[in-house]
């Protein structure tokens, strides 16, 4: 036969187990029915503990709901804002087109050089705005899980080569030589504009962090897959930063020295995931980086 203390201890343990499971059979009435004052006190303490716990849980649920709502509002705002920006950019783009045409036909040659340079600069800045807005729209689409692919049969060597050719001017401007190594056609079902975007992103990083050293782009077929890479001999990435550069807003280089949103590699990695591919990096600080993409040919 258990002593009264041992019985009480056992009851308390049972109540604690009950409270742990989110239930409580102690009530004000059941406390009042206890003959012993110290037992009443212990049970009242347990009931209070249970009520505090329940309140904390409700508060946590409410905070989680608020948090989800805040994230949804942020994502909605990002989507609306980035789309809203496209209309003024359209007007600007068309007006610049119109101004260039008028200038070519009507502005006297003496004036043309000065105004032409200014207009060209304006156009470059509008292009930059367009690309920043494109980045925001991509982020919003990726966050909402709404990236859609439009695959078509294409030769990826040709797709990559055309990106490289388009980038020649920027690379030359940065002082880097740009080489493309691609043997023959590699056919597959690809989302051409997304593949273009992936290489454009990687190349713009190679140019930005490339210190004017040579940059090489290559592609090979590997069974069912295709592998392409961008190699630079720039500032490189320290081993401790290599893991986080694919995360959102993360960048290895200090944002005080290099412009950008810190979203390029995150978008690249997310897009590749949607396409069933992956990206990896090999890099050494002060020596350079190689970003390698593997993509199923989907045939």
């Amino acid at each position, binding site marked *: 036969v258990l002593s009264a203390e041992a019985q009480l201890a056992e009851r308390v343990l049972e109540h604690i187990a009950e409270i742990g499971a989110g239930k409580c059979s102690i009530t004000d009435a059941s406390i009042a029915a206890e003959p012993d004052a110290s037992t009443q006190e212990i049970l009242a303490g347990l009931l209070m503990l249970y009520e505090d716990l329940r309140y904390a849980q409700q508060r946590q649920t409410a905070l989680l709901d608020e948090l989800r709502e805040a994230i949804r509002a942020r994502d909605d705002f990002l*989507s609306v804002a980035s*789309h*809203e920006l*496209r*209309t*003024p*950019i*359209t*007007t*600007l*783009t*068309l*007006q610049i*087109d*119109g101004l260039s*045409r008028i200038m070519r036909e009507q502005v006297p040659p003496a004036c043309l050089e000065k105004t032409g340079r200014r207009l060209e600069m304006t156009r470059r800045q509008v292009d930059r705005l*367009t690309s920043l807005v494109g980045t925001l*729209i991509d982020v919003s*689409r990726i966050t*909402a899980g*709404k*990236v*859609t692919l439009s695959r078509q049969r294409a030769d990826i060597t040709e797709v990559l080569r055309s990106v490289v050719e388009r980038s020649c001017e920027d690379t030359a401007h940065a002082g880097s030589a740009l080489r493309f190594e691609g043997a023959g056609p590699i056919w597959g079902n690809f989302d051409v504009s997304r593949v273009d975007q992936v290489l454009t992103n990687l190349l713009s990083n190679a140019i930005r962090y490339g210190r004017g050293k040579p940059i090489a782009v290559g592609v090979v077929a590997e069974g069912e897959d295709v592998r392409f890479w961008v190699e630079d001999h720039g500032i490189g990435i320290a081993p401790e930063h290599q893991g986080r550069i694919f995360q959102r807003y993360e960048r290895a280089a200090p944002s005080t020295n290099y412009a950008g949103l810190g979203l390029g590699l995150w978008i690249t990695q997310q897009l590749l995931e949607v396409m069933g591919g992956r990206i990896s990096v090999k890099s050494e600080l002060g020596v350079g980086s190689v970003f390698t993409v593997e993509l199923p040919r989907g045939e």
Partner: protein
Amino acid sequence: MTPDILIVDDDPDLRETLQLLLEDCGYHVDVAENGRVALDHLRADAHPRLILLDLMMPEMSGWEFLDRARADRTLSSIPIVVMTAHRGPSQPPVQGQDVLYKPFTRANLLAAIERRAGVTVS
């Protein structure tokens, strides 16, 4: 004069930019600031050879205009080019229409018009 193109857009600057651009190319252009005004023009005047339609507009949106135009036998044969900033599955569908995604260039615009209406710069 019968317009070649009816521009329906609530943004006054973009509307005027498009109008100037297309008039420079020799098109006769009519403008409306939303779907309702566009319908009024279409009921009162001769039909254009093509409609250039924005989607997000107050009073009557481009989507509603599309529904009305499709349901009206006198309007359903007019080719429509839709201008939108939205791309992807989150946008309400604009099936069967040519879509110009903003921002577009002069060349994109003229190509879309020629493709849809077979109208070439005169």
